[in-house]
């Protein structure tokens, strides 16, 4: 499909880190089957470093590719570094996304923030994460 870059197609056809983590240190599930995207991100954290990340996604080519990319981007990062990962970074790492698919990268960012938020909660610490309510699902209405 020419609307997707070859990097996006590669992450779609051969996604990295598909799966689940048992007893994960943080799990975030975002999205809505009605909208056609649901992402679930699992992270394992040791000494403040994310040493493993896995994902499951219900969604289109861009949704799967951005999920795969975000797991690549967080592995080996500290919690603080992970908090700074933006949807723009995900999209850029994929060589760009069609405008109508940028919301998938936003969802990937939210999935990450949701997993980090869960990590803080499981640790019993106050969470610095701000998850915008309902953000990332602004559909361009006709």
């Amino acid at each position, binding site marked *: *499909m020419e609307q997707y870059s070859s990097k996006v197609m590669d992450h779609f056809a051969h996604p990295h880190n598909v799966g689940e983590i048992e007893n994960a240190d943080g799990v975030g599930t975002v999205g809505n*089957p009605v909208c056609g995207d649901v992402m679930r991100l699992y992270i394992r954290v040791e000494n403040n470093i994310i040493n493993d990340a896995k994902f499951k996604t219900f969604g289109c080519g861009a949704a799967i590719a951005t999920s795969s990319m975000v797991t690549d981007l967080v592995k080996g990062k500290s919690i603080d570094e992970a908090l700074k990962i933006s949807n723009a970074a995900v999209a850029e790492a994929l060589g760009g996304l069609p405008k109508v698919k940028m919301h998938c990268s936003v969802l990937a960012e939210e999935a990450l923030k949701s997993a980090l938020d869960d990590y803080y909660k499981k640790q019993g610490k106050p969470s610095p994460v701000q998850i915008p309510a309902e953000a990332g699902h602004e559909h361009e209405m006709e």
Partner: protein
Amino acid sequence: MRKVYLDHAATTPVHPKVLEAMMPYFSGKFGNPSNLHDIGREAKNAVEEARAKTALLIGAKPEEIFFTSSGAESNNFALKGLAQANSQKGKHIILSQIEHFSLLHPAKTLEKSGFTVTYLPTDKTGLVSPDDVAKAITKETILVSIMHANNEIGTIEPIEEISRITKEKGVLFHTDAVATTGWVPVNVDSLGVDALSLSGHQFYGPKGAAALYVRKGVRIKPQIEGGIQEDGRRAGTENVPALVGLGKAAELASAEVQNRMHATSQLRDKLQKGLQDHIEDMVINGHPERRLPHNLNVSFWYVEGESMLLFLNMEGISVSSGSACTSRSLKSSHVLTCIGTDAAVANGTLLLTLGTGTGAEDVDYVIEKLPPIVQRLREMSPLYEDMVKKKRSATR
């Protein structure tokens, strides 16, 4: 790699005999049919021959056929043209909720200029109830438009029953037969309609050639003005080669429609059974019997349409999807919404439409390739994961 095209509802290839019939009219017999000289007359004769063949296909008279550029244009012409020409009798129109956007959007436009429109629901198989039509008709109603069959879910509507009602009540009846013409028998008198849309590229004719049938005596206001073409009803120099192609495609369809129906419905049924045998948690949308012969609309739980489409494309298989992600508006199919399909499942819908060139090996190939794609996407899906876990804990 085997290439299997299963998106005939989107378009069909031009039949070799159609292409052959069209060729002389590009550079050889290239005239403008409105001209009096021999070059013009030659082109005019070709257009009129195409008109006669198109009329024959649907049991109409040639003078009742108005050529347009597309099904969308025919639909716009029908709705606005009939409403505006008959507005002195009333300003109420009735449509179904599952009409093509080329009728729903002009209906919205008419609402802005003083018309009222009732959009009838369907049952869960996509059928419009003739009773609902009867109940919706008031003394202000001038036009009913219900599609002959729905292009997405394939359901064939009870046009004959509805036309008995519209005749009795003196209301005009238009049907969008873009999805049916060339695939099932279409006869304007048996159907009992006053206007009918059809489009060439749906039945092995070229793109850019379509028609609106308007029963003699029915008033219609031209939408594209400024020329004498189409008896003053639709201006614009005729696309002669394309119309010649439409005529030839109509001629072929007249001869072959019964065979086409039987052959493709058998293969479609084989495909449906093959998928049902190999994939769980899938739903066939549309009416089980009253359905277009080549149409299979199927929703798969827990997976999304575009991702299935991409994987199928990689295997050389072309289909369409009704998911939100594949529509430019990011909304899922209005047809599936109307028939009550769960919104999440609607996003996992594929539309497979066979053609006369589809063979048994093509069907076998799809039955081989699609189930593993669905399974692979399910294994990646959090919705599937949740379902499996739920099932496991329920059986404890």
